[in-house]
């Protein structure tokens, strides 16, 4: 990408050293600037997270209580009231992994869809790589996810799951999760900035995705056709949840799922960055 380097404007008489301020910087120098300012995308969402619960009685404890309640409700309904198995050995554990991961994904997309609109004042007054805004959205939800993950792991122990060697691969799954979230957030932030209607549409799309990702049922147990089971691997959220389940509760995973996830994690951030850069100049208007 050498087209974007602000070129000294040739042709015009006698103004060496003046750069075209409206020309966007090259992708390399852009990403370098994002990296230089990375602390912004870490500190600001962390502080926002703090501010969220400041007026409540439990205060910062809510970051732990909230995921505990999320898991607790499912525990109660599916463990106590319904007592279902649905073709899975540890159905409660199966459910917890799915719910906690999907919840993170949902919050990331919701935050990303409004991160530009919510920060228009900042965009209009300060020069900084706008890419930091969706990154900050992902970081904020990732911080909120850490206590949720602890609650989930603890609940897995309660359901009778014991740590296996596969648990050592959890960081790999989490890294894939983070990278995928980044890519998805970039794409959604860009769409959300120009199509405000996305905010209204998103809850419904997410509900659809919820059922298409096998969060509360086992796709393997419901669908016998080999073809359709493989087709599910196209859904990255299904891939992520399935890999996390393989890692934590020892369910099976198809090669198609691993391949699908790898492709998504490599392609989506790249698509996201280029797509975001393409419209960045228009974001303030």
């Amino acid at each position: 990408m050498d087209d974007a380097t602000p070129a000294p404007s040739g042709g015009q008489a006698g103004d060496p050293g003046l750069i075209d301020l409206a020309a966007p910087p090259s992708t390399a120098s852009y990403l370098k600037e994002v990296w230089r300012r990375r602390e912004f995308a870490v500190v600001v969402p962390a502080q926002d997270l703090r501010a969220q619960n400041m007026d409540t009685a439990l205060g910062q404890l809510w970051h732990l209580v909230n995921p505990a309640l999320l898991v607790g409700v499912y525990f109660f309904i599916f463990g106590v009231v319904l007592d279902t198995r649905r073709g899975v050995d540890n159905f409660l554990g199966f459910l917890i992994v799915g719910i906690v991961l999907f919840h993170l994904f949902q919050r990331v997309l919701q935050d990303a869809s409004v991160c530009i609109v919510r920060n228009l004042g900042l965009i209009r007054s300060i020069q900084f790589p706008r890419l930091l805004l969706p990154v900050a959205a992902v970081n904020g939800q990732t911080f909120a996810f850490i206590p949720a993950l602890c609650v989930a792991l603890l609940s897995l122990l309660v359901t009778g799951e014991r740590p296996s060697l596969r648990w050592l691969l959890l960081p790999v799954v989490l890294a894939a999760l983070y990278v995928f979230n980044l890519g998805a957030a970039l794409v959604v932030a860009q769409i959300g900035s120009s199509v405000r209607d996305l905010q209204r549409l998103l809850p419904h799309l997410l509900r659809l995705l919820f059922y298409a990702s096998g969060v509360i049922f086992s796709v393997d147990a419901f669908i016998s056709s080999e073809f359709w089971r493989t087709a599910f691997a196209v859904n990255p959220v299904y891939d992520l949840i399935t890999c996390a389940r393989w890692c934590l509760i020892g369910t099976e995973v198809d090669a198609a799922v691993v391949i699908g996830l790898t492709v998504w994690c490599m392609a989506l951030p790249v698509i996201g960055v280029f797509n975001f850069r393409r419209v960045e100049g228009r974001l303030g208007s």
Partner: protein
Amino acid sequence: MTALRPDVTVQLQDVAVNYRVYEDSAGGLKEHFSRGRVRRRYQTVRALRGVTLEVHESETLGVIGANGSGKSTLLSAMTGLLPLKSGTVRGRSRPALLGVSSALRSALSGRRNVLIGGLALGFTRDEIESRMDEIIEFAGLSDAVDRPMRTYSSGMRARLHFAIATARIPEILLIDEALAVGDAEFRARSSQRIDEICAEAGSVVVVSHNMTEIEHLCDRVAWLDDGEVKAVGEPGSVVASYLEACSRTGHHS
């Protein structure tokens, strides 16, 4: 075309900026679709119409004009961040607008806001930590610094904004009405700081309605009228003819 001087730091050539303002029309769904496309109606506001202007090294340029004449738009255009309809904006480096209020969080304490505002301005965390006391002292917050910002008076808030915003002085600085903040004591201190900044920064562009301030600070003044430069030149004469025009039409803002 104007002759180019070698000490130009910012150069605008025939810059035009249009804004779209969406109409809040009473047209119902039927009308909406009968036009054949799902798109809201908007009006185009020509905020700048062909502005050619230069800022020189170690110069403070004042921008005056009635409300809605395009002063703030001109500053935004100088940062290069505003999509232009036509024209070019060039500069030695990227001019920066003085101000961080949009980055700050009213639920958080003054100290945390210094950190957030500083990061938004491009400082590293270490740089802010090392200047924290200096910034807080300049803002005159003393023991309020660990209280949430929403408990501050508007004067305290303005002082904090000013203190954070002026922590870094860019080579080319744009100031939009930031000068008259706080009480008389802080105003004296902040105007002294503005003088320092004007001396330290390479070039400064100030937008203000305060003509005394403009005449005190600026080496040259540009008068904007309805998106066009009506006059540029020596402060005394431009301000005088602006004021005269205002008294003729009967609305000085």
